[in-house]
C-alpha cells in the first residue's frame, strides 16, 4: 500500500497537452499548487473536483488563457506557457475549441453567423465559411435554425450551436467547462452525446471539466483536482489494492 493519495505524476509517454507541476494564484489565493496532467492525442478526459478545487483554472492554464506562475505547459512537444500572448491567442484560434456553461454566443448574430465566426477569424472566405457552418446544422439537430438569432434559442439549442462553433474549425483540442451545467438532464445528455460523438468523428482530444459524475461518465478516464493538485483515482485504486 503506497502513498494512495499521491498526486498524479506526469506520464512518461508525452501527451498532446501536458501541465507539469504548475502553480497559479489569484492574488494571494492559490488555485493550483503543483498540478500535473498529461492528455494523449484522441483522449477524452474528465477533470473532476469540488467547487474551488482549481479544475477550471487548470483548464485555463492548459488552454493558454492563463500563464502559470510556476511550472510548464506543453502542447505538441513545445512549451506553450512561454509563448507570447499573441502566439497563444493564435493557437487558441487555430488548434483549440471551447465550450463553456453559457455566455459564449453573440446573441445579436444568427446561428449560422455564430458557427461561421471561428472560420472567418481564421481568414476562411465568407462563402466557404458559411457553407461549412451549414453542414453543422443537421449534424447538431439544428435544421432550419440557421437564420435564427441565438438570443432566441432554448438553452439546449444554444449549447448545440456553441458546440458546433467549437468544432467547426476542426480543433485538435476541445476544452469544455461544465458544458451541460445550465441544462436539464435529458438536454444535457443530448449535448454530451453530440460532444463525444462529434469529437470522436473529428478525432479531437477533449478536456472536460465537470463536477457532475454523469457527465464525467462520457469520458474515457477521469482525474480529480483537489487543493490545486491532480489525482488519478484509477492509479490510487491500483495502489490501494496492492
Amino acid at each position, binding site marked *: *500500500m503506497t502513498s*494512495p*493519495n499521491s498526486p498524479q505524476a506526469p506520464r512518461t509517454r508525452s501527451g498532446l497537452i501536458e501541465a507539469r507541476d504548475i502553480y497559479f494564484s489569484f492574488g494571494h489565493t492559490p488555485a493550483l499548487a503543483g498540478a500535473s496532467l498529461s492528455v494523449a492525442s484522441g483522449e477524452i478526459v474528465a477533470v473532476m473536483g*469540488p467547487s474551488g478545487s482549481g479544475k477550471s483554472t487548470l483548464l485555463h492554464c492548459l488552454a493558454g488563457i492563463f500563464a502559470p506562475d510556476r511550472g510548464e505547459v506543453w502542447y505538441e512537444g513545445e512549451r506553450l506557457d512561454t509563448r507570447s500572448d499573441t502566439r497563444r491567442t493564435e493557437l487558441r484560434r487555430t488548434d483549440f475549441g471551447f465550450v463553456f456553461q453559457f455566455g459564449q454566443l453573440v446573441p445579436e448574430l444568427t446561428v449560422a453567423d455564430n458557427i461561421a465566426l471561428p472560420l472567418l477569424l481564421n481568414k476562411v472566405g465568407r462563402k466557404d465559411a458559411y457553407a461549412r457552418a451549414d453542414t453543422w446544422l443537421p449534424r447538431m439537430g439544428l435544421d432550419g435554425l440557421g437564420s435564427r438569432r441565438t438570443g432566441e434559442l432554448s438553452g439546449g439549442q444554444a449549447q448545440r450551436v456553441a458546440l458546433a462553433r467549437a468544432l467547426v474549425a476542426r480543433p485538435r483540442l476541445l476544452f469544455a467547462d461544465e458544458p451541460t451545467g445550465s441544462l436539464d438532464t435529458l438536454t444535457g*445528455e443530448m449535448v454530451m*452525446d453530440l460532444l*463525444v*460523438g462529434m469529437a470522436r468523428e473529428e478525432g479531437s482530444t477533449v478536456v472536460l471539466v465537470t463536477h457532475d*459524475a*454523469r457527465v*464525467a*461518465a*462520457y*469520458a*474515457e478516464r*477521469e482525474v*480529480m483536482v483537489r487543493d490545486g493538485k491532480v*489525482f488519478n*483515482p*484509477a492509479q*490510487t*485504486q491500483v*495502489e*490501494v*489494492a496492492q
Partner: protein
Amino acid sequence: MLRCVTVPYTLLGLLEREPSHGYDLKRDYDAFFGRGKALPFGQVYATLSRLARDGKVTDGDLEPGAGPDRKRYVITESGSRELDAWLSQPSEPEPHLQTVLFAKVVLALMLDRPAGAYLDAQRSAHLRRMRELTEVKRTGALMDVMLADYGLFHLEADLHWIDTTAARLSALAEMVRAS
C-alpha cells in the same frame, strides 16, 4: 442481504481493534453499525463460530462473568489479511451499497486505515461502471436506456455520499476515535 455480507467483516474489524467477547462485540456493533436495527445474539455467535471454524479468529476458554458467553475472541493473521483485503478492495458498484460503504469508512477510521484512499478507489470503480452504463445508453434500445438510467441515478447518489463523506472525514475520524 448486504448486512449478511458485512457482519463477518465488521466483527473482524472490531476484533482487530481489540480482542473482545461476543456480548461486547454485539454492543459495539449495535452502537456503530446497528442504526436502530440491533444485531441478534444468535447471529453474533453463529458468525463468530464460522470465523473460528475458518481460522479467522480464535476463541479462548470460557471465562466467568455476566452474559451468555464469556469466550474471548482474538483475530488471527488470516482474519486480519481478509479484513484488509475487504477494506481495500472497492465493492462491486451496484445500487444500495450504503451499508457496506458506511461500514468500511467507519472501520477504516477506527483502525487508522486510509479511509480517503478507499473512498477514492470506490469513486473510481463507480465511475467505471457509470461509463459502461453510459455506453449502453448511447448505443442501446430504449428499454436498455431506462435500465441503465436506473443504475446511473443510484450510482450517482452513492457518489454524492462518497464525496460528502470524503469532505467530512476529519470530523468523522475524531468522532469514531473518541467513541
